[in-house]
């Protein structure tokens, strides 16, 4: 009940006001239930102003603000796309360089291996050659020594007869006081041998 009273109270004031305005409003006002929104005398002004305000807002939006935002968004999308493309390109380049470097390292390694093997083979060959040379020299020396020994022995063996003849001659001369003939001595030595 109290609510009803307060509801009608504000309605009464505009009704009086409308009377002063000499409008046609009071008729609608009776059936309006007191809602201020149904006071049609204020509709015209609100509608005209609304259209005006919205028109200005729309023009500013469509001509100024939205193009600005669109432009900056498009620019950003382009920037990001180009940056991503650039990054991808650099990445690919780096990958290519890395694989090239890897291949190079691999190549160097095989080359090094080949060089090492070659050096080893050369060293081995040199060693073998030097050894063979040394062997040959030793064998040569050995052979020379052997021949020398043989000749020495042969010569020594040859001298043995003479020494025996000389010795026998000297002994015979000492024992007998007469020198034996060389031929006898040689024959004797030959027989002793």
């Amino acid at each position, binding site marked *: 009940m109290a609510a009803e009273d*307060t*509801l009608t*109270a*504000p309605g009464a004031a*505009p009704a009086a006001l409308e009377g002063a305005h000499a409008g046609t409003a009071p008729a609608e006002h009776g059936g309006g239930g*007191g*809602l*201020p*929104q*149904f*006071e049609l*005398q*204020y*509709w*015209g*002004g*609100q*509608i*005209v*102003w*609304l*259209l005006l*305000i*919205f028109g*200005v*807002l*729309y023009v*500013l*939006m*469509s001509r*100024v*603000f*939205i193009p*600005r*935002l669109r*432009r*900056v*968004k498009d*620019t*950003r999308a382009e*920037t990001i796309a180009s940056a991503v493309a650039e990054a991808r390109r650099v990445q690919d380049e780096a990958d290519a360089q890395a694989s090239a470097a890897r291949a190079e390292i691999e190549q160097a390694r095989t080359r090094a291996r080949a060089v090492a093997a070659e050096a080893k083979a050369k060293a081995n060959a040199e060693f073998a050659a030097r050894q063979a040379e040394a062997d040959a020299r030793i064998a040569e020396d050995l052979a020379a020594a052997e021949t020398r020994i043989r000749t020495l022995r042969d010569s020594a063996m040859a001298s043995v007869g003479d020494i025996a003849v000389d010795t026998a001659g000297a002994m015979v001369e000492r024992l007998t006081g007469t020198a034996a003939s060389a031929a006898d001595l040689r024959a004797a030595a030959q027989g002793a041998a």
Partner: protein
Amino acid sequence: MASPMEQFEIHKGLQLPTVELPGGILIDLSLNNSIMAMLIAAGLIIAFFAVATSRAAVVPGRTQLIAEGLFSYIDDMAEGIIGHESRKFFPYIFSIFLFVLSMNMLGMFLSFTATSQLAVTVTLALMTFAIVLVVGFARNGHRMYKLFVPSGVPWYMLILVTPIELISFFLRPVTLALRLFGNMLGGHVALKVFAGFIPALATLGAVGVAGAILPLAGVVALTALEFLVAFLQAFVFAVLTCVYLNDVVNLGDHH
């Protein structure tokens, strides 16, 4: 105590001349609180976007980030509903969303909510309806009748379907206007009524003070809800504008 309806009363401010339209309709151009609320709402949007986009950079600042967030939000929504042609209608959709949002939100801070005025919501709804009609006839011409005669429906069903489609089509501006108006009106009335309980109960002594906590909590909760409604109704208005535009933009081809 003030009536919950007092907040919707129009109070005249600056007196401006009354214009008479042909047909004897008088239009009082005087400024009042409703018009002031609209002016402030639009002014805030314009000021905000002027600042946010004045030095638009690829790496956005804080205000630009908010502006772009709103922009993308509505742009994605419009493109999702209308398709690739949404860019043509985006300025209107975005403007109406921001304007309604701004008026709704101002209603939470000022003493007046422009969108709780039927004159305002009806005008906005009729504006959208008119644009839908203009776009529809400009694009489709006489094929606009397909809007009410869905293809692939047998003739005996059309007898039923066509009147329903016609009625629902012409009720669109009505529902569009009343939905926003009703939400704003109801929310602010409920807030006022609940808030009115607090002093009324508090005068009843100790028990009353204890009892006043309940409506106080209610008002706090309702205020939070009203902020949600303020945003939601602006969004719903924008979504429905998109849906109605989509009907006539992509008439006939189901996409």
